[in-house]
């Protein structure tokens, strides 16, 4: 079972280490992790995707809430969330595979963000399944390097309205 934790934390030094350390110490999985500032000064958001048994996922929320630098923990399932991941893939191309690359980009809605004579960087922002699909499609082509953000997520508007 997967679960998404959107954690508001005090923007102090060492907070990310404390949160990541908590996951390591208690053997909780981190499938992905993304950190950024919020609109409120001094408050950051850590989005963590974790997977495990129901009881473990519940413990994660409780243990996060115990941390004094954690302001608020919101948790939701994949279905309840709007999630996005940004991925950058640098590939080596030649005239034999150029067309194929463009077709893949076209089919998945990815863009070419940077290009030189023999290399291009493909960018894509979509749900994690789609970015995973892009990776799979590109696997047979010569990938030079990859950077991805980890999942960012917010609960769907309809859910937030109800609360």
């Amino acid at each position, binding site marked *: 079972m997967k679960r998404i934790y959107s954690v508001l934390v005090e923007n102090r030094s060492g907070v990310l*280490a404390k949160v990541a350390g908590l996951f390591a110490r208690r053997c909780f999985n981190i499938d992905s992790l993304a950190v950024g500032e919020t609109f409120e000064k001094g408050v950051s958001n850590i989005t963590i995707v974790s997977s495990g048994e129901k*009881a473990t996922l519940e413990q994660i929320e409780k243990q996060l809430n115990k941390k*004094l630098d954690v*302001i608020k923990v919101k948790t939701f399932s994949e279905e309840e969330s709007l999630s996005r991941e940004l991925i950058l893939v640098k590939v080596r191309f030649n005239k034999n595979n150029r067309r194929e690359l463009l077709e893949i980009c076209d089919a998945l809605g990815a863009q070419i963000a940077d290009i030189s004579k023999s290399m291009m960087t493909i960018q894509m922002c979509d749900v994690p399944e789609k970015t995973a699909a892009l990776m799979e499609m590109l696997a047979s082509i010569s990938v030079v390097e990859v950077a991805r953000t980890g999942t960012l997520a917010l609960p769907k508007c309809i859910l937030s309205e109800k609360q």
Partner: protein
Amino acid sequence: MLGADAMAKCLEEEGVKAVFGYPGVAICPFFNSMLSVHIDRILVRTEQNAAHAASGYARVSGEVGVCVATSGPGATNLITGIATAYADSIPLVCITGQVDSSLLGSDVFQEADITGAAESFVKYSYLVRNAEDIPRIFKEAFHIASTGRRGPVLIDVPIDVQNTTITKFKYPEQVNLRTYKPTVKGHAVQIKKVIKALSKAKKPIICAGGGVILSGARQELRHFSHQYEIPVVSTMMGLSAMPTEDPLYFGMVGNNGKSYANRAMNDADLIIMTGARVADRAISQPDLITDNKILIHIDVDPAEIGKNVGPTIPLVGDIKAIFEELNQYELKADFSSWVALLKEYKAQAPVRKKPRDGFVDPAALIGRLSERLAENAVYVADVGQNQMWSCGYHIVKEGLFLTSGGMGTMGYSIPAAIGARAADPDRQIVAVCGDGSFQMSMMELATMQQHKLPVKIIVLQNGYLGLVREYQHNTYKGNYSVVDLSGSPDLTKLASAYDIPCLKAEDMNGLDEIIDRFLKIEGPVIMDVRIDPLDTVK
């Protein structure tokens, strides 16, 4: 005023009577400022024991214990003591000196990242960057340590921050922590559910953990138990929640507990688990506990509930507040036949097999000692076989039973007893340890003498690390490895080097007189007790 003066002033504002510590250059400004406040400064002989002493102080006074060490090795030596306090939820404020702020992260002499290293053993930690923050940080640290689920808080203060002049000192009246608001009052709906479940139960039992003692709920729990005639068992940390000879008390649970306590837990149809984390030593198969019974779990820490066992009725809040509320209800129930059955179980309990002649029987010694101890005596047990015998045979009256239950830290008893003495100069305080645990803390005999903090120490000598020897006997067919304590000092000579009287008990002959003399001696005293090297706890 310097940052260091502000630190000392904060401790005074908090009403701290004694600090336990060990200096070094990085904490010297603080110790210099301590000369101008009325707080005892107790020099321990190794930093770990400063934390244990602060723990003993906290557990007897009910206040926050304070320990202080310098940067680098001073700070890292504290960690075992901090972890011990964390495991047993003991409120401490641990102050460490740190290298100059401008040198942080450059691996200079005696620099250790103590806030990083101690992270998983503290409730919270601060690295002070600005001297003006000192009053706020100290106020918060004492508040965090002593509320909710209690625990250690670390304050790391670079030497330049201690030496910075601050413009004005104002100790805050209140804390303002948006992320920390522990639940005190139990949820009314859940409390009603507890009463309802109890009214339907036939065989209810309360399992009292250390939380009962920490929240000061002993009287409320006893009242609850007596009012509705509900029997009580306890975990190791819950020993002294009930007097041992209370007719409704049925001993300690767990693999080193009483058979009848475990039978009571197994037979019960409703368990009120209160202030206990349901760890492996108390409940061997926590996931099975709810198979055929209702489990009510009361704890101030919501994360404890559902961690090791999924309860039927969770109830978050301070145990004292919750039992005060539970005591308001009328409950029509009659559990007398259940209590009678437990009394039968107790009567059927196997008698401990008598150890070989020619030695002192530790169980008999502890029992006879207990009979003679003052009503409110503090009994500090160390870790090892001595701890198991203490748990099994010490009879608690109105006093306290202190031990390192969660972490099982050897060497805890002597420094903790010294801390307990600093908190209460009039109480009878006895530390009971083995020859292994004694040698982990025997340097503190000097602390005891220097600061006139006398405690009575009983050393059960069997020449082995007994509990490990017993384990190796059972698991490795008696192939002993690294458990022989040959080379141990002659205790009479050692005691005499510290100018401490030492009584020897070599066998059962005249044991009562020796115990009487031991208790009568004013000031510190050691009892050197010879027990059978092959004696076992099971």
